[in-house]
């Protein structure tokens, strides 16, 4: 099967500074892939480059279509849902409005309805807080909202940037459990960036390790978990 996302020679820039130096990797249809790496390795930048939030060069092919020249909003509409670092909540809008706005670009109204029901089965707490201002939600709830908002786009691929950041372990567990369900039940492929490598390797089938803007290692998660270097640098034992 052709890969869902195929990246080769990807460079990204912040101003004049090159942050990614020719990154290449592929992402299989239907799976979960994770990017590991220390702070500043370029994980977040990779996600931002894919969705066009930073200036980039190289080739990014999503589902057979080159998207490296497309604008963020058009990439989103193709089915790439980016759950940004820090959750990107519309704090002044209600929970309902946060979800609604993601579905406006969609033509399949029955699909929107189905996905909204899906969101509420995954995160019943959001249903309870539907009329509340999103800024008043707890960190965990805002992360749930960010994932739900991405789901409301009806995506084929979700880019998840540190979904565990700043959350209590129990909440993280709940959210990762739901992420797996979204992957399996809604058939959404995922590219996950995580500081918590153990967590990420447990969820993902494949992993790429980044160091200062290039891929230094890749393989199935099960293999990487047993790699001594990975264990020492990222898993801490």
């Amino acid at each position, binding site marked *: 099967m052709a890969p869902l996302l195929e990246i080769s020679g990807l460079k990204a820039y912040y101003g004049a500074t090159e942050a990614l130096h020719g990154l290449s990797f592929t992402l299989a249809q239907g799976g979960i892939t994770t990017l590991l790496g220390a702070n500043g390795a370029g994980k977040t930048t990779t996600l931002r480059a894919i*969705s066009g*939030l930073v200036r980039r060069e190289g080739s990014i092919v999503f589902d057979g279509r080159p998207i490296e020249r497309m*604008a*963020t*909003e058009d990439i*989103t*509409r193709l089915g790439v*849902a*980016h759950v*940004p670092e820090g959750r*990107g*909540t*519309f*704090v*002044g*809008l209600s929970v309902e*409005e946060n979800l*609604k*706005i*993601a579905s*406006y*670009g969609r033509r399949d109204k029955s699909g929107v309805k189905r996905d909204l029901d899906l969101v509420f089965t995954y995160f019943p707490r959001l249903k309870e807080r539907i009329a509340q201002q999103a800024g008043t939600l707890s960190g965990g709830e805002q992360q749930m909202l960010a994932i739900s*908002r991405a789901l409301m*786009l009806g995506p084929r691929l979700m880019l998840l940037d540190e979904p565990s950041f700043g959350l209590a372990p129990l909440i993280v567990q709940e959210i990762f459990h739901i992420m797996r369900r979204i992957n399996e039940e809604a058939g959404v492929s995922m590219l996950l960036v995580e500081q918590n490598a153990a967590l990420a390797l447990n969820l993902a089938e494949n992993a790429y390790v980044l160091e200062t803007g290039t891929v230094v290692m890749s393989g199935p998660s099960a293999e990487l978990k047993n790699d001594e270097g990975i264990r020492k640098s990222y898993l801490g034992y």
Partner: protein
Amino acid sequence: MEQLIQQIASGLASGAIYALVALALVMIFTATDHLNFAQGEMAMFSTYICWQLIQWGFPFWPALGFTILFSFLLGVAIERVILRPLHNASVLSIVVVFIGLLAIFHSLAGGIWSHTIKNFPSPFPTVTFAGSGYIGSHQIGMIVVSLLMLFALFAFFRFTPLGLAMRAAAQNPVSARLVGVKVDWMLALGWGLAAAVGAVAGAMVAPVVYLEPNMMASILLYGFAGALVGGISNPAGAVFGGFMVGVLENLVAYFGNLTEKTFGIYIVGNGEKLTVALIIVITILTLKPAGLFGRTTVKRV
């Protein structure tokens, strides 16, 4: 007493105009963090367009409708053509552009229509009614039209998909793009709406202050004051602030005259009402820098 009510009523009427101007300013500010100094001159220019159409024989309301459309497109065009390329420019360069726009519209209006003061017709019939002693029919008309405008905008932002997209784009542009909102166009749309609101304000106030290139100067100042007092980031607050400033300036004049009559001491009068109103505004801002209803934005570093 009768005079007091009269003063409050006419304060509400001019306050309605300030509220519209304040709202136009807030619309652009919340979306871009810029205060559009040219807002008043754009409104003045629109008012001239409306006047010209009326001169050509159009009835008032169709002329105003066309003017609103024209202003909307003008606002969109200004954002797309002039401000778009400056997206990454510093605040100061943008301020210069705003001042440039102000000067351009000012001299353009003077050049096309000359600087002589013109009468602008009121669309509202002069009728006598129970409260005529307190408030004129044009003043009531100003208030009604402004309120209708405010409610229409409120409904637009609150209940339509496009309104929601615009609010989202203003609050968090990056997240908005990530849910497929065309943020650039939302900014242009905001400019268009602000220009359209300004046009209505201009056409409503022109019968009172007469049409000339300077007509919006002090009104823009009051609009600024209203927006700042209410909280520049809060549309409802800005509207309230506009009304407040309108009533305040008239009360200043009223109580000034009253003290002069009773005690024979002249402290403030009509001439100082702008000064005193602004003093009050500055006082409020010193005590509450974010305005009465504004939120202080806390930035995490």
